[in-house]
C-alpha cells in the first residue's frame, strides 16, 4: 500500500480551501499551515500562462526527514505516510532543514508538524480533509499500489510531473499538467 496524491493544476483555482480545511480539521495554529498554494506565472501580456498548485508534504518514499531524524520521531507509517511522533520529537529542526519542499514547520508546542495525509481519517476510510473539501475536485488521493484505484487510473491517463525530482526523494505527490 502506497498512499499518494495527484493535484490537477488544470482545475485548481488556488482558492486555499485546502489550507483552511486542513487548519480546522487538524487544529493547525493560525499563522501556520500544512498545505499552501503556489502560483507560477510565465510570459508577457497578453501571452501568458499560469500554473496553480496546491502543495503539501510530498510523503517521499526516500525521505531525508526520516533519515536525518535523531530520535526516530519522523518515520514511515500506514501506507508509507511520513509521520512525526510528537512525544519523541525534540524540535531540533534537522528535518525542516533537510526537506527540499519546505513542508515542515515548528509547532508552537515544541514539536515539528506537517501534513499527515489526515491519517486519522484515512484509517477510517475517509479522504484527507483537503481532498474532501476541494470545490473543483482537483485533488485525488489513494493507493498507487492498487492499479484499480482512482489515483492509479488518473496517473495512467494524464501527464504529470513531480517536484524537484533531482533531490532523489521519490515524492508521492503528482501534479497533473
Amino acid at each position: 500500500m502506497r498512499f499518494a496524491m495527484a493535484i490537477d493544476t488544470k482545475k485548481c483555482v488556488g482558492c486555499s480551501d485546502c489550507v483552511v480545511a486542513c487548519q480546522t480539521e487538524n487544529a493547525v495554529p493560525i499563522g501556520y499551515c500544512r498545505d499552501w498554494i503556489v502560483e507560477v506565472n510565465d510570459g508577457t501580456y497578453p501571452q501568458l500562462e499560469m500554473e496553480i498548485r496546491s502543495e503539501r508534504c510530498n510523503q517521499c518514499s526516500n525521505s531525508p526527514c526520516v533519515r536525518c531524524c535523531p530520535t526516530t520521531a519522523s518515520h514511515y507509517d500506514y501506507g508509507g505516510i511520513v509521520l512525526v511522533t510528537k512525544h519523541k520529537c525534540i524540535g531540533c529542526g534537522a528535518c525542516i532543514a533537510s526537506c527540499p519542499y519546505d513542508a515542515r514547520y515548528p509547532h508552537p508546542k515544541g514539536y515539528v508538524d506537517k501534513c499527515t495525509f489526515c491519517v486519522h481519517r484515512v484509517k477510517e476510510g475517509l479522504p484527507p480533509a483537503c481532498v474532501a473539501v476541494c470545490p473543483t475536485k482537483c485533488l485525488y488521493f489513494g493507493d498507487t499500489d492498487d492499479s484499480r484505484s482512482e489515483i492509479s487510473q488518473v496517473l495512467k491517463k494524464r501527464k504529470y510531473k513531480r517536484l524537484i525530482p533531482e533531490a532523489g526523494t521519490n515524492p508521492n505527490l503528482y501534479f497533473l499538467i
Partner: protein
Amino acid sequence: MNRRNFIRISTLSAGGAMLGTIGFGGGKEPSMLERLTGKVHAEGSRYQRTPTYCEICFWKCAGWVYKNDQGEIWKIIGNENDPHCNGRLCPRGTGGVGMYFDQDRLKTPLIRTGPKGKQEFKRVSWDEALDFVAKKLDFIGKKYGPETVALITHGSGGKLLTTLMKAYGSDSIAGPSYAQCKGPREVAFGLTFGAGLESPEPTDIRDTRCLVLIGSHLGENMHNTQVQEMADAIDRGATIITVDPRFSTVASKSKFWLPIKPSTDIALLLAWTNVIISNGWYDRDYVEKYTTGFDKLKEYIQPFTPEWAYGITTLNPNMIRDTAKEMANASPAVIIHPGRHVTWYGDDTQRSRAIAILNALLGSWGRRGGFYLPELKEIPEYPHPPFPPVKKSWRDILGDQYPFAELPLANAIVDGSIPGNLKDFQYRGWIVNGSNLNMTMPDTRKTLEAIQQLELLVVIDTMPMEITGWADVILPECTYLERYDVLRNDHNREPVIALRMPATEPKYDTKPDWWIAKELAAKMGLGNYFDWKTFDEFLDYKLKRMGSSLEEMKKIGVKKYERTSGDLYFSADNPPAFDTPSGKIELYSTQLEQAGFDPLPRYTPHEEPPEGYYRLNYGRTQSHTFSRTSNNPNLSAIMPENLVWVNPKVAANWQLKEGQEVWLKNQDGAATNFPAKVRITERIRWDSVYIVHGFGHTNPLLSRAFGKGASDSALITKVLIDPVMGGTGMRGNFVTFLTENPDKEVKA
C-alpha cells in the same frame, strides 16, 4: 498582538462555558468514524453535528457544524445533499468558524454618547437599547412619517426586520446587492426574456459546451455551484472564453482569453452579434418561433463588424470571429454568462441586454447547457395581520427617475437622506443590518454626509465595522453559528430548502435578528406581527405545512422536493413562455423605446484615464467576502491585505518595486487612507490597476484588518448612474500612485 495565543485562550474559555450546556451525552463514547462524520447516534452527545447554512456570502451553502472533544465548535463541512455546495464549502465557508471565535466581535448593545463618528458609546442592556430605538422610531414616525425610515440589509437576518419595517409602515427596504451589484442584469434579462436571473443564476454550466465569461472572474468569486460545475466543464473539455483586461484565474484556464480594453465590452458584444447574424450562425428555428425584433436587430447590427470593434476593444478581429464560431458550434449548449456584479459604467442594463440578446440568438435560454428553468419552493407565511398601507412607497419617492428599477435602491436612500436632493422628501432614519455601507456604497464621503443628517442610525451587525462607528445604537447580532434563521429557499434545478440552527449558545451578550425584530416589535406595539413564542414554533409551523418538520430538518439539514413545473428545459411538457408584453423574447425592446431609452444596445465611448492615471479595476478573491471577512482570524491568515496590481511597464515608469508601499489617489483628489503594497505582474493591462475589494478598514476596533490595504470604495467618487434602473457604475475612476503618505494625520 499574538493571534495564536489569543485563539488558544479563547477556545479554552468557550469550551469551559459550553460543557455545562452541551454535556457529555449518555451511553458509550462515539467511535472515531462517528466523530469524524458527525453521524453520532447518541442524542445530546457533544459530538453531534448541527445543520446550518453559510452566512459568509449570499450563496448560502448548507453544511454541518462539528464539535471537538471539548464540545466546542471545531469545523464546518458542506452538506452532501445540498446543490449549492455538494458537500464542499468554499474557503470562506470552511473558515466560517473564525467569525465565531473573532475576539473583536460586538459584545453588548451600545448607545452613542459622543459626537457622530467618534466611537464613544456606553454599554446598555438590551431592554434599554431597544427602548431607545422604539421611542426614536415612534418619534420619527409621528413627526415625519414611518416611510422616512429605511432598512438596508444583506443576509438572512433581514427577513424578520423586513416584517418589522412593513408593519411599521415603510417599504424602503434595500440591499446593496441590487443597485450596487446585479440589478442591471435582472432588468435586462427581465426586459428580454420576461424573467430575471435571481440567485443562484440558472446557468447550466454542468452541461454546457461553451462558457463565456465577460469580466466575471469565476474561481476568484467562489460562487460555489458555478465554480464546481466549471471545474467539471474543464474535465469534460468544454470551451471557456474569458473577456477580461486582467489575466484572471479563469483566463488562465480558458481556451480563449480576450484581453479587452476596459469599458469597451458592448463593442465586442455587438461585433459577436454581427458575426453570428451575418454568417447565419444563430438558431434560426428558435429565433423565428420565440423572438420579436430580429429584422430590426439584423439591420442595426450591420456596421458593427469585428474590424469596427478592433479599433475600440484592441481585440484581433480574427479572435472575435473565432470565438463567435466557437459559441455557435456549441449552440444551444452555450452560456454567455450574465455575471453578478455588473454595475460598471452606467450603461450596464444595455450591456446586459446585449448579453441577453446574444444568448437568445444562440437559443440558450431554456435549453440544456444554456440556462435551465429553475424552481422555487413556496413557503407558507406564518399568519400575521395585513401590513398597513405605505404613505409614500420607495417607487413614489423615486418619482420618474430610473423607471425600470424593480427594487429599492440603496444609493437612492443615501441620496434621499441628504436635504435638497429630493422634492418634499427626506429619509430620517436607517436601520442597517449586515451591510457596511461605508465600504459597500461607492463614494464614502457621500455616505458619511448622509449619515450626518440622520436622526437615527441603528446598526445590527456581528462585527465593529466602519458603519458601526457612526451608529446611534449598535445591536450586536450573534453569528450564524449561534442562531436560528428563516429557512433558506432559493431557485434551483429542484426546489430545495435548508435549515440553520444554533450549534452553540450565543457568545457574549449577542442576539439573533429574529429576536431583535420580535422584541423591538413588542416595544413598538407591533407584537401581533410576531405572534409566536419561539422561533422553533415559527419554523415548525411552516415546515409542517411543507411535508416536513423542524425535527426532521434538524436531522437532514437540507430537503429537496420534486419539481412541479415540468421539465428543466423547454419541452412539450414545459413549453416556452415569456412574461414580456409580446409574449416573446424581445430582441428589440419596445418597453425601453417607450421610456426613451435605446431599444437596442448601443456602444458609447467612456472616459479614458488622463496622463499618469490608470483605470481602477476591483474584484473579488476566494478567501474573502466584501469587507465583512477581512478580520476573520482564519481568513485573514490566508489573505491579510490586498495588493495593488501593476503592469511591469507601469512599474518601470514609476520606478515602483515589488512590495513597495504606495497610496492611490483618484481623479478627484480622493486618496486611500493606508499604504498598500505593489504587486508587479504581467497579469494586468498597462492602462489599469487592480485591487481586491473590501480592504483598507479604518475602524481600529478591527485588530487584524485595520489599516491593511487599500479601499476601493474610498476611490470611487465618480459614480456613473444607469438611467434605466439607477445602478451605480463604479469603474469610471482613475488612480495614480503616491509614494509618500498624502495625509500625515492618518497612522496605518
